[in-house]
Structure formats: C-alpha cells, structure tokens
C-alpha cells in the first residue's frame, strides 16, 4: 500500500486545495502518471502517482483543503 502524500510546495505554502482527480478509486494507475491536481495561490500543481497499482482510497475530494504532509489517498501496488 503506497501513500499519496502532499509534499512541501514551497516556503509559506502550508495548504493546497484538491482541484481534480485524474483517476477514480478502483482504476489502474501507472507510476509517474498525473494522479491529482492541486491548487495553491495562483498555481496548480500535478502530483504524479508514486507507483503502479490501483487507486484504492481517496481521503480528500475536489474542493477539499489538504495540509502539507497529509495523506490524500492510497494505492494498492501491483
């Protein structure tokens, strides 16, 4: 099980808002594929998938605010 974690995005940036999931739970994802898009200030940021597998859980949905270091979801590795 791999965790999808919101990384450090820069000084003074502690939070980001989920703007778009490129995959739905249950769908297969390739490593490094764009997984989720987040928005902070005037920037959008694409988080790539940490591994190949199936997106199993999504804890934050579109419009939700996430803090740096929090787990956005998990991937069942294959």
């Amino acid at each position: 099980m791999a965790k999808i974690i919101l990384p450090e995005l820069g000084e003074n940036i502690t939070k980001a808002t989920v703007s778009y999931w490129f995959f739905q739970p249950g769908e297969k994802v390739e490593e490094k594929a764009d997984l989720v898009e987040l928005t902070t200030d005037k920037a959008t940021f694409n988080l790539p998938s940490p591994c190949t597998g199936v997106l199993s859980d999504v804890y934050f949905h579109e419009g939700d605010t996430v803090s740096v270091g929090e787990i956005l979801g998990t991937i069942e590795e294959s």
Partner: protein
Amino acid sequence: MRFQVYDLGLIEFRPAGEFQRQLVQKIKEGRAGHSLILCRHRPVITFGRSANRANILATSEELNAKGIELAETERGGDVTYHGPGQLTVYPVFDLNNIKKDIHLFLRNLEGRITSVLEILGIPAVRREGLTGAWVGKKKIASIGIAVKNWITYHGFALNVWEDDLRNFSLIRPCGMDIIMTSIESESKRLIPMTRIKDILIKEMYRWPR
C-alpha cells in the same frame, strides 16, 4: 540565468498551450532546458479548473459578437482575459534545477515584472496576498501558473495597450472587483511592444539563483 527564447507572435490561446505542454515534456525527457515563450493572444477569456463561471459576466452571444473565445486551462487562478494588447509570457522553467518552491517562483516572477515596469518609469509594486503586479490598487500584470514534475508553464500577462482593457469589463478578473491598468495608461504614451519584449528578456535573465 540562461534560457531559450521563443517569440510566437500573435497566436491563439490553444496552440500556445500545446507548444508549452510539448516543451514541458521535452524538458522532462532532458531534450530541452529552461525556456521563455513570448506571445500575444487573439481575444480569449480563460478560466482555471477551479474558476467560478459566474465571474464571466458577458453572455455567450455577447462574446461571439465580439469575437472572443472561451478556453479552459490548467493554470491556477480564476477567470481572466487575454488580448493582442497584452504581452503574454510563459516561463517554462525546470524548478528541479533552480529551487523547488512554487511560492518563491511566483514572488520572483512579480519581482521581474516590477523591474521591467520600473525601467519604463512605472512605479509598480507587489501586494501581499494578491499575486500580480500593481500600480497603486490597479492591476497591471496577472499571474497564473501550472507546475508539472516541477516544470512550470503558463505565466503572466502584462497589460500594454489601453484599448484592450475594456474587455475586462466582461469578467470579474480573478473573481475580484479589480480595476486594471496598462503600460499605455500609466505612461501616457505608446511604447513599442518590441522594446518591452527586449527589456523583459533582459530582466528575466536576471532571475535570482
């Protein structure tokens, strides 16, 4: 800082976006380095994924009549307008080779824009919490970026000609009630676009390392 300059001239919004995405891919694969794209767009209203469509005040009939397109984009920020009276600048920079800091990138971008304006005799400033470049409380440059694998794309639009500003009344720029200004409005003269481009390229070379 070194980068390749691409001047796309007058171009529609979508092909300019495609050009950027291809560059991002090339940089990711190590086939290109930092790049700076300059262009001017045909009239278009663009909105990010999280934009509120209610901030487009004009009806689609009005936009059609004025020949203004609508385009969705992957950049941050709400609704904005682009037109041929703006210099639109897309720095496709690889932050893996500079500093992986989105906040710092935005602040440096503002710093470069205010330097260009200072050279042109316009006292522009940054405003805390309000990304962009401002002359007093009027906005002269709008910023909205996207970052993929720590490679930046999209960028900023600097208002140059005054007559393009009226199209901002068709939207609520960035979802706020903002008054826009331009280089022409502030300097009371028409500065050739080529001169502004030259100054801008030189100022971008001075990007802090």
